[in-house]
C-alpha cells in the first residue's frame, strides 16, 4: 500500500480486543462519579502520549463565512471522539477536512506526525462513513465492501478473506449477494460501516452515522458501533447533533459552536462540569440562575439572585471575585421536591407547581417562585400515578446541596 500514509499493513492485527479501553460512558451508565474511574483510558491526560490527529490553528472560510475559526484539537489513537453541535456549527466541515474533501484556508492538520493538508482523499489513511451511506447502488453488498480493497490492488484471495471478515463482523453474511436496495436501513448502515472499515483505516470518520435510523434501532446500533470500535481498535471520529448519541458512544465529546470548540471532555465531565452556559444548556436539561457572588470560605460562595430572599450557596473550584456576575447551573434531577421545608438543606426555596410533565419513569415539575423565576425539578415516579403526592397549584419546597450546581462565569 504505497499510497496510504502509514496505513496499518496487517489488517487482521487490528482485531485483538482492546481491553484497556474502558469507556467512561460505561461509568456514567453505572451511576458512578468520575473520581471512581478504575481502568484508565485517558491518553489526553498523559503528557507523553502523541496524538494521532493534531489540528493546529485551522481556519476554514467559504467566501466571507468562517466555518472553522482558528481551531486546535488533539485526537488520540483508539479514541471514540464525538463532534457535537447544532447544524452549521462547523462539525461537518471539520470532518470533511479530515477526509480530504475540504482544504483548510489556514493551519495544519497532522495525521501521525505528517501534515496531510495537501494529500488528496484517495491517498489518505482515513475512511469515511457517509450520512447517506453512499452505497453504490449498482454493486452488490460484497462488491461494495471489496471496492476499496480492489482499488489498492490487493490480491484476490486476500480480498475474499477480508470481505468475509467484515461481513462477519457486521453480521451481514447472508446478504453478501444482495444489492443495497434489497436490504433494510439498519443493514445498509452496517454495510457502510463494513465498507469504510475494510481498508483498515487509521481513522474512521462517521458523519451522522445513525441519523437515518429510527430511535429504537439507533439505540441498538450505538452499542454495536462501540463494540466494533473496541474490536477493531480503530480511532473513530463521529459527527452528530444528537447529544444522547454522543454521550453514549464517545470517549470524549467536543462541543462546537460557530466554528469553535467550546469544551472537550469525557461525557460525564461535559454533563457534570460544563465550562459554560452554552454547554450546560446544550447538553441535557438545566436550570440557569443568574446572580452575583460573594466568597464565604474556601471554594464556597454565596449568590445573591433575583428571588431576593435568602442567598444561595454553591461550591466552585474556579475562583469568583466578590460582586462578580455568575450563572448557577443545576440539573433538574439534582433538585429535590418536598411538601415541607427541608431541614439542613444548603439551598431551599418555596414555590407553586405550574406544570407537570409526566414522562413515565420520571416527572418534571415546573415550579414558579414568588419572583416569577421557574425552576425545574425531577422526581422518579416510584408510585402509581393515582397516588402521586403533588399536583398543580400545590405549594412545594425545592432544595439542593451546595455541590449540586456548577458556578459559571458566562
Amino acid at each position, binding site marked *: 500500500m504505497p499510497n496510504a500514509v502509514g496505513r496499518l499493513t496487517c489488517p487482521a492485527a487490528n482485531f485483538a480486543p482492546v481491553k484497556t479501553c474502558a469507556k467512561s460512558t460505561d461509568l456514567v451508565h453505572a451511576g458512578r462519579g468520575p473520581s471512581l474511574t478504575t481502568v484508565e483510558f485517558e491518553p489526553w491526560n498523559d503528557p507523553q502520549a502523541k496524538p494521532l490527529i493534531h489540528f493546529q490553528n485551522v481556519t476554514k472560510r467559504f467566501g466571507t463565512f468562517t466555518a472553522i475559526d482558528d481551531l486546535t484539537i488533539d485526537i488520540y489513537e483508539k479514541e471514540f471522539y464525538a463532534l457535537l453541535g447544532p447544524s452549521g456549527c462547523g462539525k461537518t466541515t471539520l470532518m470533511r477536512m479530515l477526509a480530504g474533501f475540504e482544504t483548510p484556508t489556514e493551519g495544519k492538520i497532522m495525521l501521525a506526525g505528517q501534515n496531510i493538508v495537501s494529500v488528496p482523499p484517495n491517498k*489518505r489513511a482515513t475512511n469515511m462513513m457517509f450520512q447517506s451511506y*453512499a452505497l453504490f447502488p449498482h454493486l452488490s453488498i460484497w462488491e461494495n465492501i471489496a*471496492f*476499496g480493497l480492489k482499488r489498492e490492488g490487493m490480491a484476490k484471495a486476500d480480498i475474499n478473506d477480508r470481505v468475509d471478515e467484515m461481513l462477519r463482523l457486521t453480521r451481514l453474511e447472508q446478504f453478501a449477494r444482495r444489492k443495497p436496495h434489497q436490504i433494510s436501513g439498519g*443493514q445498509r448502515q452496517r454495510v457502510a460501516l463494513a465498507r469504510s472499515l475494510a481498508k483498515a483505516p487509521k481513522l474512521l470518520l462517521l458523519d451522522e452515522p445513525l441519523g437515518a435510523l429510527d430511535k429504537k434501532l439507533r439505540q441498538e446500533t450505538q452499542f454495536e458501533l462501540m463494540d466494533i470500535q473496541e474490536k477493531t481498535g480503530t480511532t473513530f471520529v463521529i459527527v452528530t447533533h444528537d447529544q444522547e448519541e454522543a454521550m453514549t458512544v464517545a470517549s470524549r465529546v467536543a462541543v462546537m459552536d460557530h466554528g469553535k470548540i467550546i469544551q472537550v471532555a469525557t461525557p460525564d465531565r461535559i454533563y457534570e462540569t460544563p465550562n459554560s452556559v452554552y454547554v450546560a444548556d446544550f447538553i441535557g436539561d438545566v436550570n440557569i440562575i443568574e446572580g452575583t457572588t460573594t466568597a464565604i470560605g474556601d471554594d464556597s460562595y454565596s449568590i445573591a439572585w433575583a428571588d431576593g430572599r435568602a442567598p444561595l450557596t454553591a461550591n466552585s473550584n474556579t475562583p469568583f471575585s466578590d460582586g462578580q456576575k455568575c450563572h448557577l447551573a443545576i440539573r433538574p434531577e439534582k433538585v429535590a421536591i418536598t411538601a415541607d421545608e427541608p431541614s439542613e438543606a444548603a439551598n431551599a426555596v418555596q414555590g407553586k407547581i405550574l406544570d407537570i410533565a409526566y414522562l413515565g419513569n420520571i416527572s418534571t415539575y415546573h415550579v414558579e417562585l414568588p419572583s416569577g423565576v421557574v425552576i425545574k425539578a425531577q422526581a422518579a415516579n416510584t408510585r402509581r400515578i393515582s397516588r402521586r403526592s403533588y399536583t398543580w397549584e400545590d405549594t412545594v419546597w425545592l432544595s439542593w446541596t451546595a455541590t449540586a450546581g456548577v458556578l459559571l462565569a458566562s
Partner: protein
Amino acid sequence: MNKTSWFNVVSLTLGFAFLYIPMIILIIFSFNESKLVTVWAGFSTKWYGELMHNKAFLDAAWVTIKVAVFSSTIATVLGTMAAYVMVRGGRFRGRTLFSGMIYAPLVMPEVITGLSLLLLFIGIGLDRGVLTIVLAHGTFSMCYVSVVVSSRLVTFDRSLEEAALDLGCSSSEAFRLVTLPIIAPAVISGWLLAFTLSLDDLVIASFTTGPSATTLPIKIYSAMRLGVSPEINALSTIMIAIITVGVITASLVAKQQMVRQRREEQDAVRS
C-alpha cells in the same frame, strides 16, 4: 372518494381523441385499395408491397439510419461530457458562453440552425452529404442529450463520488466505476432522444445535405408536397408502429423494473 368529474372524463376523452384520431385514420387508409386516399375501396396491403419495391425510399431510409446512428453517438459522448462539465465543472473561464451555447440550439428555429451550418460548410469548402448532416445533427442533439443527462446528474448523490474517492479511486476511476454506471439509463435515453431527433429532422437536413444524400424525411416531404398518397400512409404506418412498439416496450420494462425494485425494498424492510 371519486375525484373524477364528468367534465374531466369529457375533456380527457375529447383530448385523447384529438391526439389519436388523425393517426388512426392515417393507419386505416394505408390499407385502402384505392389510389384515392379519401375514398374507401376495400382492404388491401398492396401499398406496403409497392413501398418495399421503391428503391428511392429504401435508399433514403438507409441514409437516415446511418446518419442517426453516427450523429446520436457523437451527440451522446459530447453531450454527456458537457453535462458533467455544467453540473460538476465548477467555475471556469467562458462558462457563461458555454452554457449559452448548450441551451441556445434548443430554442433556435431549425431554419436558422440549418442556414448557418450550410453557410459554414460552404465557407470551409466541405462537400455536403452524409458527413455534413451527421455534424449538424450531432450539434443540436448533443444539447438535448446534455439536458437529459444533467437533469440526472443534478439529483445524483454527490457523496457516492466522494465515497469512491475516499476508498482510493482517482477521479477518473470514480467516474468510470461509479458515476457512469449509475447515470447509464439517462445516457441511454439521451441517445434514444438524439436518434429520434435525427430520424425526424427535415429542415436542418434539407439545408445541410447535398445531392448525394437524401434522407427519408426529405424524401417524404417532397412526396407530401404533391398531396396525400396511400404509399406515404403505408410508410407512416410502419414508422408509427416501430415507434409505438419501442416506446411501449421501453415503458413496460421501466415499469417492471420499478415494481420489482419496490417489491424488493418492501421485502428488505420486512426481513
